[in-house]
């Protein structure tokens, strides 16, 4: 039955991964930007939450009310300045700029917060667990994070498919020039998409901070960027539903790997990623034509 427990833990973990991944998926799907600073942005959000809590003394769980909108604004401004400037210079430049950003963020965090670990303490309300039978334990925190992830992803999917702004984002992603010809300022729409992506990263970062401890280098050492990317690739680019599936699959495989040996957790996920790349590069949920 511990295998069942592993699978359940994996599914819940997958929710967190999917939350990380949807920002990456959005940025890549809309702007063709691979944000190498993605993991570090999440950690930055975590630290921002730490700072906000220290200053305002609000309960940890409400820190997102300040941090998430702040990050949305950051995303819009970042897109209109840095990302837009590098987009016009080609793929290599965006990779280099986001890579440079990753280094700057990590070291700036270390400069101001020291290299020590921090954690976002959670209230006693959600530090408890649910017990099913003798073998299955579900921490309330994990469950909440998973539900938040599902709500966010499905909400985002709905937003993209049914709202005017979502339609514009999809249009700009399809054909930037044609969108311009329809009267859309694609830079502004890119900015909106980036704002949404950054908001989800902030949410993911805060969730991560509640889930485990983090330090300035966690963006890279915790392989958050890699997991997010793997979730996107496994699930398939093109739909956020796919990102959720990918995240869950990754989580499950990792947890099953951990059952085999605690060293194999990450490796199992990497191998799944490689396998998908080899036999079904367009991802689980995408049809062949968009590969």
């Amino acid at each position, binding site marked *: 039955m511990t295998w069942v427990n592993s699978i359940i833990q994996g599914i819940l973990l997958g929710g967190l991964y999917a939350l990380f991944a949807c920002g990456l998926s959005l940025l890549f799907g809309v702007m063709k930007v691979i944000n190498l600073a993605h993991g570090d942005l999440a950690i930055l959000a975590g630290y921002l939450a730490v700072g906000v809590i220290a200053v305002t003394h609000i309960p940890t769980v409400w820190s997102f009310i300040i941090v998430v909108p702040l990050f949305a604004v950051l995303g819009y401004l970042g897109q209109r300045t840095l990302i837009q400037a590098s987009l016009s210079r080609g793929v290599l430049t965006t990779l280099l700029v986001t890579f440079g950003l990753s280094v700057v963020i990590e070291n700036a965090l270390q400069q101001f917060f020291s290299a020590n670990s921090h954690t976002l303490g959670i209230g006693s309300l959600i530090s408890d667990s649910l017990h099913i039978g003798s073998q299955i334990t579900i921490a309330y925190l994990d469950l909440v994070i998973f539900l938040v992830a599902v709500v966010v992803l499905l909400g985002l999917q709905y937003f993209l498919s049914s709202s005017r702004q979502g339609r*514009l984002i*999809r249009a700009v992603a*399809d054909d930037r*020039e044609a969108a*311009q010809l*329809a*009267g*859309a*300022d694609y830079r502004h729409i890119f900015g909106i998409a980036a704002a949404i992506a950054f908001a989800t990263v902030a949410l993911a970062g805060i969730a991560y901070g509640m889930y485990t401890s983090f330090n300035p280098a966690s963006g890279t050492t915790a392989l958050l960027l890699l997991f997010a990317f793997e979730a996107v690739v496994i699930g398939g680019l093109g739909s956020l539903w796919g990102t959720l599936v990918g995240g869950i699959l990754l989580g499950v495989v990792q947890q099953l790997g951990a059952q085999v040996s605690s060293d194999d957790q990450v490796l199992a996920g990497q191998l799944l990623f490689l396998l998908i790349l080899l036999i079904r590069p367009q991802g689980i949920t995408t049809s062949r034509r968009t590969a």
Partner: protein
Amino acid sequence: MTTGGGPLLEVRGLTVHHGQLRALDEVSLTVGAGEVYAMIGANGAGKTTLLRAISGLKASTSGAILFDGTDVRALRTERRVAAGIVMVPEGRRLFPSLTVEENLQVGAAYARPGAWNIDRVYELFSWMPERRKQLAAQLSGGEQQAVAIGRALVANPRLLLLDEVSLGLAPVIVRRIYDTLPDLLASGVTVLLVEQDVSQALRVASHVHCLLEGRTTLQGEPAQLTAAGIEDAYFGLNATPGAPA
């Protein structure tokens, strides 16, 4: 209709470069309200470049583009759409992952007030309503062209730029597309089109303008032009190489 009494569009001495290549060389033209102005010329003559320059997708090196008396060269494409210049680009360029209706909705997102809306486009193309939920990528070439024109119309343009609408389409489909032109004109839209098929252009246009290697070789009303004259202007035969047209 123009507010100043002058032509709706006036292009003066427009020069456009692709890198070091001079794609348009001091091209000038005047389009009055309610006209159908046709650009003809061989491949690479600069017709599409001209339309892209007028719509703002391509920066021009020098010259002026006067829309209703105001030079729009400094305006981004989106602002020109707001002013009333809307282009149906070469190759349709529908949003492939969006449905027919969503494509039209995007076209209407920044529309100017006017007579055209999605319902009226559905009236113009009667087959469209029942296909509205289909993905744009699944339509045939002719159907996509119709949707592309519809997408431009719902923005309520004053000047509609049509770039090679006949490209890749069967003649009977092309005819059907051009049959909608009178409806457009009746609603107050002026049309500047690029057409490879010279006889088609002569049928619908009030003015014809021929380009060769970026330079104007001929312009005038169809009735005043001879077939031989058009042929010479189109292919550049009998002209001295390198000499100005």
